[in-house]
């Protein structure tokens, strides 16, 4: 294994990632595909004649890997990307530090929250928290958690995409969690 060649391949990683991400719309999957490509290139080093540039040669290998990945994805659509929805979520209102992705204010320990389900006062607080949700968000959350509609039923009814739905439900849950912690569970900080 030629160390120079290895280094050369590594310098192409960024470029390969950009191409893969564009095609696959899934960062995690793109990473896998690029890694496979570089590995294949290493083992096929003997086959590289130097006629085209390294970049062109690698792109050829990459394209095959991408096609394979897409074919596999069709067979298992559930494992496909969260990439789209990640784009929507980038603006997630200060819940996480932008510098390192850590929680701005991590959840505290709720102990044994099921006990609270025996208390009517708890559901008063729950009501309060639901009322505090923005109306469109609340509507979606209620459809899902109270009316128990399936995702596609809600999407059809409201003419939103699955990704939209996930983002909305995520926001709702984040918001409710925070509200319940503040107003009921009292933010008991267990040793972290």
């Amino acid at each position, binding site marked *: 294994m030629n160390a120079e060649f290895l280094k050369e391949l590594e310098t192409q990683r960024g470029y390969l990632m950009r191409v893969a991400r564009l095609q696959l719309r899934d960062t995690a999957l793109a990473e896998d595909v690029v890694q496979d490509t570089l590995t294949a290139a290493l083992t096929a080093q003997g086959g590289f004649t130097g006629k085209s540039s390294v970049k062109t040669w690698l792109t050829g290998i990459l394209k095959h890997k991408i096609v394979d990945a897409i074919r596999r994805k069709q067979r298992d659509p559930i494992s496909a990307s969260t990439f789209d929805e990640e784009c929507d979520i980038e603006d997630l209102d200060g819940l996480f530090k932008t510098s390192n992705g850590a*929680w701005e204010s*991590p959840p505290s320990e709720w102990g044994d929250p099921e006990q*609270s389900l025996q208390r009517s006062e708890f559901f008063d607080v*729950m009501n309060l928290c639901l009322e505090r949700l923005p109306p469109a968000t609340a509507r979606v959350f209620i459809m899902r958690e109270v009316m128990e509609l399936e995702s596609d039923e809600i999407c059809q009814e409201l003419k939103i995409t699955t990704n939209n739905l996930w983002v909305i439900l*995520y926001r709702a*849950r984040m918001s*409710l969690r925070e509200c319940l912690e503040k107003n009921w569970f009292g933010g008991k900080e267990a040793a972290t």
Partner: protein
Amino acid sequence: MDIKRNIRRALGHLIDCPRATRLVSQMQERPLGFRDRQLLKLHLAWCVACARFDRQMHFLREAMGKYRQ
């Protein structure tokens, strides 16, 4: 300790807290794909905050179930 910090940083690149919490939420609507499931499991094993979030999301669904009644 340096090694621990490096491991945490490396694991963080696989899946960070924002992504983990999104997956935890998504799980309430549909099962995760194999890779996402593994990455999430790994993250929840070492991240106390997200592990709490996971438990609290389960509780929230249970609470909504009771609220229905």
